[in-house]
């Protein structure tokens, strides 16, 4: 199935869709944040969501991960052979079903070390309870060792093996971004939602980040949903792009198609003056 996933754009009953959102409408009072949004993330692909500021990208992420509950629509996750409803589930339940995320404004546990940050996420599936831990039961110790090993592996994977014991808040911006990704990966997700992972990083870090995202996608087989303003990054990693404007999907397709879509050009030029035409800035 992985051979077909790259070419398909919208298939009504896809067997290879891992996250499907249909008709999502999110309102805050009179403000319509998301208006009838459809989104399909196929298994094994990298889908980028772009759009001018205030288009509803982060609201979409928050709706997918249970932070916001849209008034209408449905979100399903097909994982482990079954269909799971994600709408209205609490954030930690969504995470356990296999959807991990990072945040636009980095939300690490600043006073903990990098290793501890990842461990917290790695441990959430474990079963050892307070009594077992207090009595020092063998399974509790085993779990502790397992999460320790896993966290070391993941920090190694994102290239931070030498910064295990540094406080999260004292890391550089790029490292903080990578640590957040490692933390999200520690929950063994099927789908990873990255909210502007390149914001505030320098060009070298952006290149490394693009590599990292591809690695996560290809080597770990995790489907990635990506919000990003940096068009070069989007064009280099994304298999497909969905464009949001004023809470509506205005275009969807391969990066090249989207780049030449008149509605997208219009949205970027007409609706907002702080954005460049996608793809134009890197020429």
């Amino acid at each position, binding site marked *: 199935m992985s051979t077909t996933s790259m070419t398909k754009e919208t298939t009504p009953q896809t067997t290879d869709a891992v996250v499907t959102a249909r008709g999502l409408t999110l309102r805050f009072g009179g403000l319509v944040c998301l208006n009838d949004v459809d989104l399909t993330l196929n298994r094994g692909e990298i889908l980028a969501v772009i759009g001018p500021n205030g288009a509803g990208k982060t609201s979409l992420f928050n709706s997918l991960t249970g932070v916001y509950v849209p008034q209408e629509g449905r979100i399903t996750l097909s994982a482990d052979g079954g269909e799971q409803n994600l709408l209205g589930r609490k954030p930690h339940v969504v*995470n356990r079903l296999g959807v991990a995320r990072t945040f636009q404004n980095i*939300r690490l*546990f600043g*006073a903990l070390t990098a290793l501890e940050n990842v461990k917290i996420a790695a441990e959430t599936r474990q079963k050892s309870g307070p009594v077992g831990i207090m009595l020092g039961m063998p399974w509790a110790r085993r779990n502790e060792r397992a999460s320790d090993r896993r966290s070391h592996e993941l920090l190694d994977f994102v290239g931070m093996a030498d910064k295990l014991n540094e406080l999260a808040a004292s890391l550089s911006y790029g490292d903080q971004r990578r640590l957040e990704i490692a933390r999200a990966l520690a929950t063994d997700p099927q789908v990873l939602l990255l909210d502007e992972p390149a914001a505030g990083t320098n060009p070298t870090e952006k290149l490394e980040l693009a590599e990292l995202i591809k690695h996560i996608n290809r080597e770990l087989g995790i489907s990635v949903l990506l919000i990003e303003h940096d068009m070069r990054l989007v064009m280099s990693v994304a298999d497909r792009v969905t464009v949001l404007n004023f809470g509506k999907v205005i275009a969807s397709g391969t990066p090249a198609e989207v780049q030449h879509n008149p509605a997208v050009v219009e949205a970027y030029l007409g609706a907002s003056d702080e954005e460049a035409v996608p793809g134009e800035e890197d020429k």
Partner: protein
Amino acid sequence: MSTITRPEADERDMVVMDLAKLRRVPWYRQPRWTRLFGMVLAAALLALATGPNASTDDIFFSVNESMTDGVRLPVCIALMVAFWAFFEFVPKAPVERAKATARANTVDMPAWQNTKKAFDKTPVKLGALAVVVVVLAVLPLFISTRWNQVLVGNVAVYVLLAIGLNVVVGWAGLLDLGFIAFFAIGAYSTAFWTGSLPTKPPVELNPFLAMPIAVVTCLIAGVLLGAPTLRLRGDYLAIVTLGFHEIVYLIANNANGFSGGSGGATNIPHPSVHLGFLDYEWELDPKPYWWLIMGMAAVVVFLFIRLEHSRVGRAWTAIREDEIAAAANGVNTVKYKLMAFAIGASTSGLAGGVYASKTGFISPESFKLMFSVLVLAYVIFGGMGSIWGVMVGTALLAWLPEYLKDWVDENDRITYLGALLVIMMIYRPQGLIPSRRRKRELTLAKEGIGDADAMTEPAGGRIA
């Protein structure tokens, strides 16, 4: 920040100083002068505290007398200002230079890693711990009966309580103002199961058997209170726990048929052991109780330390630091908060059980709101989140009012406690022996990253 200790440090310092000048903070808003202001206030408080008592005829009598009778106020202010000046202006250069050299030698390590380096060696730690335990164990043999009573009734029981509250406030970051309610529930359940309340239990038990029941009762009470309210946070949760305390207190006070009303319960038996070879009964003598509570506290501390450094402790820290990020990474925040509440409550229940059977008499007066506030103050004074700090802080603050009994008017004792807290919060907000994680949070907050104060949350009170 003190991380720069390389050769070019001087140049950088100059730049930093120039930048500081550019920022132009008005002099009165610099920390040094705000601290002076705090000290003058504390001096006024001290003058008030040492002055004559209040009179019911004229509410300003005490204030008037204390502030105007000759030298009292000037002396107090002079004392406090001298204290302030000593810490602000006595040259620290030699000390700082020594520190800087020490840091330069280990420049790649974060500062918090090498400060306690020597002490962190396990044998040294264990040795120090053993000495402290032995000293504490023989302490009652060398002090008078009155001080033994204080040691058990005031210090030991409150240390146990503070260890419990530390789990809730220090680790999970939940502000609980009704902690004494669980203490009361523990004490009343012990009284009930030993047959000392008007309502009789199905079987009368030895206090030692009643205590575990009290602990479980408190655990359930903790979950019952927690379940509907833990979606709230910060100030909102504090108000709910306050309400819970009032409910428990008023039931204890008014349900004459069940709790004995304001008269409370009397003749709660002392615990005893009858195990064939071992036959012992605790009596009026406070010493054996001291050893009993020490043993209990030792077990509780041992278990809690394991918990702190486990996934549970880390999850609590995560929730305290950023609840939304914790939830997004799969931490079931409600479950862990409930766990903290239940564990704290059951420790409180244990303390209640010991207290009830030690004093043999309980009444609602022992469980007033004031005690909840006091225990919280002890925990903050000692250093939230640090088990050793909390124990030392509680011991100090619980001992102080008793000690002051001999020196100042009995009704004024708590004023000194208040003044001490004011000074402490100005000079050392992290507490006597701060926990490492908390200290780092405070440092981060100073630098403008993060929020050290787990009790203040964004407005709104509810989370998604």
